[in-house]
C-alpha cells in the first residue's frame, strides 16, 4: 500500500485503538437514525409539527452568540420557498442558506465559502439570483424563493437547463452545480435568447473549481435553444 498513491497521512499512525480510551461522557448509547427523508416528507413534518422546527437547532449564523432574549414575535417569519409558504421560527441573524439547509432540509443549496465569493449557495429571490449564504432570512420574508429543488416540475420532469447540463456532462464533482443550475435558469427566465457573452456574464457569479465552465456555458446555450 505504501507504494501507491499520494500523501496518506494515516500511514504515520500505528494500527490499534486510540492511545487513551475515550470515555463516554454522557448519554446512553441508542439507535441513531439518519434522516434519509424525502423532501416532501420532511416538509410535511415541518409544516405539521412545530417541534421539528424548534428541535432542529443545528443552525449556524455568525460568530456572535444568538440571543435567547430575541422576542419571539421578531423571529416568526413566513417564507415562500419553491411555491409553498411556511411559517418558521428564525433568529434575526440567520442566513437564508442556513434556514434552507438546516431548517427545511433543502440540502441541494450548498455552502462553498459562506462569504459571498463562490455562488454554491445561489438561489432565486423574486427571480433574481442571490447568494443565500450572505442574505438574512428575514430580509427575504416577502420574496418568492426558488432553490435547486424547485427547478424541476412537480412530476419530476427536468428543466431544460438541467437536461442540457446532463447532456453536456457539465457537472464534474457537482458541488457548484446547484448554483450553476439556478443561475442559468434565472438568466434564461429573464433573457430566453442570450448571446454566449450574456450567458457567460449570467454564470459569472458561480465558481467551479473543477473548471467545467465551458460545459456549463454550452449547456446554458443548448437549453436556450430548447426552451
Amino acid at each position, binding site marked *: 500500500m505504501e507504494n501507491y498513491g*499520494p500523501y496518506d497521512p*494515516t500511514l504515520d499512525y500505528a494500527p490499534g*485503538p486510540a*492511545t487513551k480510551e475515550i470515555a463516554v461522557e454522557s448519554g446512553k448509547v441508542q439507535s441513531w437514525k439518519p434522516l434519509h427523508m424525502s423532501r416532501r416528507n420532511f416538509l410535511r413534518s415541518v409544516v405539521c409539527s412545530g417541534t421539528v422546527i424548534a428541535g432542529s437547532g*443545528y443552525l449556524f449564523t455568525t460568530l456572535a452568540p444568538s440571543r435567547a432574549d430575541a422576542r419571539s414575535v421578531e423571529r416568526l417569519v413566513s417564507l415562500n420557498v419553491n411555491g409553498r409558504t411556511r411559517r418558521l421560527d428564525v433568529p434575526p441573524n440567520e442566513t437564508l442558506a442556513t434556514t434552507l439547509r*438546516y431548517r427545511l432540509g433543502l440540502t441541494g443549496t450548498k455552502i462553498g465559502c459562506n462569504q459571498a465569493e463562490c455562488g454554491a449557495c445561489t438561489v432565486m429571490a423574486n427571480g433574481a439570483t442571490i447568494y443565500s449564504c450572505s442574505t438574512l432570512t428575514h430580509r427575504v420574508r416577502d420574496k418568492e424563493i426558488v432553490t435547486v429543488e424547485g427547478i424541476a416540475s412537480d412530476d419530476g420532469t427536468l428543466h431544460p437547463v438541467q437536461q442540457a447540463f446532463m447532456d453536456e456532462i457539465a457537472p464534474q464533482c457537482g458541488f457548484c452545480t446547484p448554483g450553476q443550475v439556478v443561475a442559468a435558469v434565472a438568466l434564461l427566465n429573464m433573457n430566453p435568447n442570450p448571446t454566449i457573452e450574456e450567458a457567460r456574464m449570467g454564470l*459569472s457569479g458561480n465558481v467551479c473549481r473543477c473548471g*467545467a465552465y465551458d*460545459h456549463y456555458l454550452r449547456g446554458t446555450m443548448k437549453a436556450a435553444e430548447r426552451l
Partner: protein
Amino acid sequence: MEYKLIGKNFTPPDIEAKVTGAAKYAEDFQADGMAHVKIFGSPMPHGVVNSIDLGEAEKVPGFLAALVPDEVKQPGPAGFPILSNKPTYFGQPIVAIAAENEQAAADAAAAVKVDMTLLPFVVDPLESLKPDGPDALEGGNIASRGIDFQSLKWTGKDFAMVGEDELPRGEAPIEWMFGDIEEGFANSAVVVEESMVHATNAHQAMEPRSAAAYWENGKCHVWGSTQSTSFAQPGLARLIGIELSDLVFVAEFCGGGFGGKATSYPLMALPALVSKKIGGRPCLLRVSRVEEYDNGMARSGFQGWMKLGFAQDGKLLAADMFMVQDLGPTSGFRDYNNVGIASTIVYQPASMRFRAVPVLTNTTPKGAQRGPGENQAANMVEPLFDKAASELGIDRLAIRRINAPGGGGADAKIGAAQGPVTSAYLKEALDKGAEAFNWVERSANSGMQNGSRARGYGIGQAYHSAGSNGFDGLVRITPDGILHVHSGVGNLGTYSYASTSRVVAEALGYDWDNVVIERGGTQKHIPWNLGQFGSNTNFTMTRSNYVAAMDAVLKLKEIAANAFGGSPEDYSLENERVFKTSDPSASLSFAEAAQRAIEMGDKYAGHVLPEDIHPMTQASAKAIAGTGLVGVAKDNLEKEGTVPALAVGFIEVDVDLETGKVEILDYVGGADCGTVIHPDGLAAQVRGGAVMGFGLATTERHVYDPAYARPNTRTFYLSKPPTILDVPLKMGWVATDQPDPQNPMGMKGIGEPLQGAASAALINAISDALGGHLFNRTPVTTDMILNAAEGLPQSHKPLATNTV
C-alpha cells in the same frame, strides 16, 4: 477494435442527482439529535501547549464535550495529528468541541483558553537550511517517506558561493544520475542555466472537508468527503482506532479533491472520535472555508536550479537539476521525486543528475495536488525549452518534438533507472495538437501588437504516471438478469467509476441499460480498489473490472456446460445468453444462469473465493454470496514498466502591457491516454484541467507572512481560482487514441498532466508576448507582467517564497 460501449458517450448514473440537488455530500448528512463539532485552531505557527482551560467553554449553553490532544492517537515524527499539543502550523486543531448546535459549538470553541509557548518557526525552506536557521519542528527540518526525520543545515560557504539570484546547492539527501552529464554539457551547442521559484497553492475544492459520524452496536459510521471509497478505509479505521470491519463508510459524492482528499485525512476521523465521547451520538463537523485553507492541504512549492544542455538540433544532451521542496510541517508528498521523473520521460535526456532536499516549514500541510511535482516541473522546465529554442534558432514545436517519446515508446525511458514505459505517444499528441491549433501559421503572429495588447503563443507538455495493478474486481449477475458492478473507486467527478465499469458490460456483451453500478460506501459491498488519484483509475480499474468480468464469463460457460454437457470452451456469449457454439438452442439466459449459480453454490455464487483477494473484497463477496453469479478476481495480468499519461497544450493570449491583464484567446489540449473510453468525460477533463492550469500559472498561491507565519490567502478572492471570465469561450481537445498494450482494452489515465500542459503553455505564451522574457517564477502575476513590460525590477527577491 470495434467496441459497443468503449469510446461511446453515455449519461453517468449519478449526474441527475447533481443537477437536481438530490446528491448527498458529507455535509448534507442529517440525523435526529445531531451534535455539531467545532475546532479550536492554533493561534501561532509553532508552539507548545502548556494548559487547556475549558471552564468558560463548558458554561456555554448546549456544550456537550471537549476532546483534547492527549485523548487521541498521535502519529510518528513529522506526522499529521488529529489534534496536537505541539501545533506546527497556524490553525492546526488543538481542541474539538461538541455542542447541541453549531452556534453553541462555535461559541464554546471561542471560549476555550489555551496557554501556549511560541517556538521557533520558518516559512522559507532556504532560511531553514541556513547554518543557524530555525527548524520547523523540534529536532528537525527534513523528512519524507524514505528519509528519516532529521536536521540538515548547509554551510555558510554553500550560501556564499552563489549570488542572490542563484539557488545555493549544499548537501542533498536525494541524489541520482544516469549517463555522463559533464560530457553532455561539453557537447552542447546551447546551455541554459536558471534558478526558479514555484509557489505553493491550495486545492480549493468547492466542498470543504466536512465529515459526520456516529457509533452503533460497536460499529463506527462515517460520512466523509474522499476521492477513494475503498482505499480511504484502512487509514480511516487506523485513525479512529478500530478494525476495518467495524467501519461503515459512506462516500457517495465528493465535492472536489484534486489530491487533497485522495484517501482519508485526520479531520475525517474527528467527528467519530468526538461522537465516541458522547455515547455515539451523531456529530457533524462542518469545515469552514478558512479552516479548509488552514488544514486542507496544498501543493508543495519549490526553489530550484536547472542547467540544460542542448545539441544544435535541439536534442537534450544533459540535464542537471536541484530542487528544494517546501514540504509544510509533515512528511508530505514527494513532489521532488516527480520533478525528476517527469523530466526524464517528457524530454528523454541522454544524461541527467537530480538532487533534492525536502524541507519542513510551518505552513499548511502539503499533500499531492493534481500532478504533484510533475506539473511544477512543467512550469519550471518548459520555459527553459523556449529559451533554448530561441538561442538555437529553432521552432518551439520542433525542440519539443525531437525530444518527445513517440511511436509507441518502445525506446522511451523513464526515471533514474531508465526503465521502460507501457506506451508513449507524446510526439503524436504534439502533432495532433499543433494541427488542431494550427500552430505553425498562428505562432507566426507572436509579438503582434494591437494597441496596448501584445499577442503571445505557447506550448506546454506534462506527464503523470497513469496506472497501477494488483487490485480486485467484483461483479454479480442477479436472477433478474441485471449485472451489478461493485466499484470502490470513488466519485471525484471524472465519471471514471462509471466508464471503467462499462468494461465489464463490454466484456460480457451487456446492454448498458441492464447494468447497475454498486458504489458509494461499505453498504454496497465494494471490492478493494485503488483510490481515485494519480490518474490511475482508467488503467487500474479497467484491469480489475476486466478480470472479474472474465471470471464471470468462465463461470457462465461452466454453468452452461454443466446444464448441457461438453466443456466450457464449447460455449459462447451473446445478447446476454450463454449458448453452445455448435447448437445455439442449448442456451441459458444470464438470468437463468444466475439462478443456477445460486443453486450450484460454491464459487459460482461467491461462497468459495480466490485466496489472493484482499480481505475487503473477501468480506464484500461474502456479503453478496448466494444472491447471484459472482465474478471476483485479483488483477494478476502482466504489467511491465511505467504507464505514462502525457498531455500537451497550445495556447494563444493577449497580454495588456498597460494593465498586465492576460486574456486567453484560444486553447487546445491534447492527450495520450490510450484508448478513449468516454469522449465527453475526456473533453471535460481536458478543459477542466486546463482551467486549473490557468489558475496555477497566473493567480493561485498560498502566501504566508514571513514575519509571523500567518496565512494571508484564506479566501477565494485572495487565492483566486479562475472564474468563467478568466477562461476562453471555447476550448478544443484532441486525443491520440492509441491503445496501451498492457491494458486489456487499451486504456490509461490522463487527469493530472492536462493541468500542467495548460499552465506551462500559458506561462510560455505570456513570456512570448513579452519578447521571450523569462519569469522563472510561478505564478506569473499581473504585477510581475507589468514590471517586465516596463523593464522594472520585480518587487521580490529572486528566490523569495510566499511572494504576492
